[in-house]
């Protein structure tokens, strides 16, 4: 896994149904970063499986036909180079994190299947684990239930550590699809309105700064007691919702906060949750959150 470029975007695929859309998003992100798309899939082989003793090379050569097929099924992307690679690991998140470590991409894109009955897809726990450990900008994309063209992207912002990754990611997708970006800020009460407006305008300025006039940027401010309700209501009329992971902390367990979870649950659009580069949590925090999750 040598010759990595500084703007490369790593995209991990597991589900054949998600490949095309993830590669398309990764292409947009890579184009804006002047990099290539590095497409990987993780061949999961736990040590206690019958393949536990085979070398990674043997597994890739002889026992990963499905994974090869998955990578080959990915479409080419207009004016972005694509590199395909297999990673052997004991679980999906370990494979993705080690690929990030080995190739130092400028961003990582993963799929987020919110349907818990699919055990082979990237589940919430994988997203959490990757968010906690991957040392790069991470985007988790929940596939829209109705695929289609992207003409309008909603970007709810409220400051915080992930706002830069969120805004630049949205700009990249907008630039790749000739779409417009609406930066939304929600104030809890009338008095917050000015602060909310300042957030929205700062992000809009960042976008215009980075992408110039190639994309249309609008700002919107809403007032309401529950931020989640306002975002879900505003989502109507947009094709993609891009928002920050929002939550960090030792005891809260999940790294993806309540706002994105609620938006994922209550909307049908494509939702992309972004986590900025600096957002990894320490070993102790991960252990605590894992124990919290397992219910011990």
């Amino acid at each position, binding site marked *: 896994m040598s010759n990595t470029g500084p703007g490369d975007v790593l995209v991990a695929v597991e589900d054949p149904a998600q490949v095309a859309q993830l590669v398309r998003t990764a292409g947009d992100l890579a184009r804006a970063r002047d990099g290539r798309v590095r497409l990987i899939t993780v061949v999961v082989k736990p*040590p206690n499986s*019958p393949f536990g*003793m*085979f070398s990674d090379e*043997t597994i890739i050569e002889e*026992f990963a036909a*499905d994974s090869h097929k998955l990578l080959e099924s990915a479409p080419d992307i207009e004016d972005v180079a694509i590199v395909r690679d297999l990673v052997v690991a004991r679980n999906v998140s370990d494979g993705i994190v080690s690929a990030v470590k080995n190739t130092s991409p400028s961003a990582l894109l993963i799929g987020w299947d919110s349907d818990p009955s699919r055990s082979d897809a990237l589940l919430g726990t994988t997203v959490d684990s990757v968010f906690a450990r991957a040392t790069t900008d991470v985007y988790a994309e929940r596939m829209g239930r109705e695929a289609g063209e992207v003409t309008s992207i909603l970007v709810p912002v409220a400051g915080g550590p992930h706002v830069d990754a969120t805004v630049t990611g949205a700009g990249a997708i907008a630039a790749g699809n000739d779409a417009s970006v609406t930066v939304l800020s929600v104030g809890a009460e009338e008095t917050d309105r000015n602060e909310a407006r300042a957030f929205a305008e700062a992000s809009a300025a960042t976008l215009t700064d980075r992408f110039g006039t190639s994309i249309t940027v609008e700002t919107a401010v809403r007032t309401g007691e529950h931020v989640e309700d306002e975002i879900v209501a505003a989502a109507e009329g947009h094709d993609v919702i891009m928002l920050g992971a929002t939550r960090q902390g030792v005891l809260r367990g999940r790294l993806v906060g309540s706002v994105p979870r609620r938006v994922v649950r209550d909307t049908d659009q494509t939702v992309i949750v972004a986590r900025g580069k600096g957002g990894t949590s320490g070993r102790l925090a991960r252990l605590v959150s894992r124990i919290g999750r397992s219910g011990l």
Partner: protein
Amino acid sequence: MTAWGLVALATLIGIFTAWTLGANSNSPPFAPAIGAGAVSTMRAAFLIGILAGAGALLQGGSISETVGTGLIDGVSITPLAATAGLLTAATFMAVGVFSGYPVPAAFATTGAMVGVGLSLGGDPSVGTLRGIAIFWVLVPPVSGGLAYTTATVLRRDNIPDTVGIPLLAAVVGAVLANIELGVIPGPPDVTQYSVARFVAWKVPTPSLGGVDLAVVLTTLVFAVIGFAFIRRRTQVSVDRGVSTFLVILGSVVAFSSGGSQVGLATGPLEDLYGVELGLPGVVLLAIGALGILAGAWMGAPRLLQATSREYAQLGARRSIAALVPGFLIAQAAIALGIPISFNNIIISGVIGGGLAAGSAGVSRRKIGVTLSFWILTLVTSVLAGYGVYKGLSLVLGG
């Protein structure tokens, strides 16, 4: 804590252990059959529960006895010691399941019971432990060798599938005639008897070199039935013959795995149930069998979904090559009363089958890691068993 409280607690941990074994150790045998599309996941899980439970009930006694009474001389396992041993073993198994690292259940239980026994002031039963150690060391080369032979036979062009696969079925049939089961009646002084010996007992025949002619004939009849049945299937269609054989092989391996794994959960309770409560051995085995059945029904579908895809990649012939040693070694272990870990046999078999195809393609690093975990499990489970019993007896004054 009262004695009854301890009995209840130890039994609960024993059931949990059996449940864990049923959910994890007993499922893999059917994965190749599912991978080949011969049986659905849910039906396989149902069959595994029934077969492994039956194997536990009918064949579990010998290993259970070794684990409970054979490892340590001079002391008997008290209720507190049984609790300590099971608690230690169950913890090791849980760590293995949750971390995904290879922690062999047989190593954990054997180690824990040796530790507890030493802590009680007993002496290690050198002869038994030496036998177990030799068996464990022999498992990888023997399983790998059997798988290598099986795979070589199946790969040879001058042995058609309509002969090679029925020949393996004949071997399985011959062994089935000779496995000892708790239900087959025999002379009053034996508790387990095989079909072949039952026939020899009922139909007196001259013996050839110490072996009853009836035993030989019964074995041959079973072998011929196995050969003829699978041969007819392979003659209709090789794929169908392979599928049928994978289901049969999965069934007998699941049965054997029940018989070889239940003792890891019930062994520590042997003294408690047999001596202190004065119950017949089958009561304890029935408890373990129910735990395995429940574990298989609840846990197997998930595990099977993951592993059947792996066996599908391995292919039917190599899967057969891995399962045949699983059956033979498990039955040998049951006959000798030696606790074994199924995963060790299967992994060695998969590598042996790979060698027959030309290259093993193994990773020295991964073998090293796995061996280290095996040794680590053995050593730490002895220490933990010793420590846990000492700790519990200090706290509870046991």
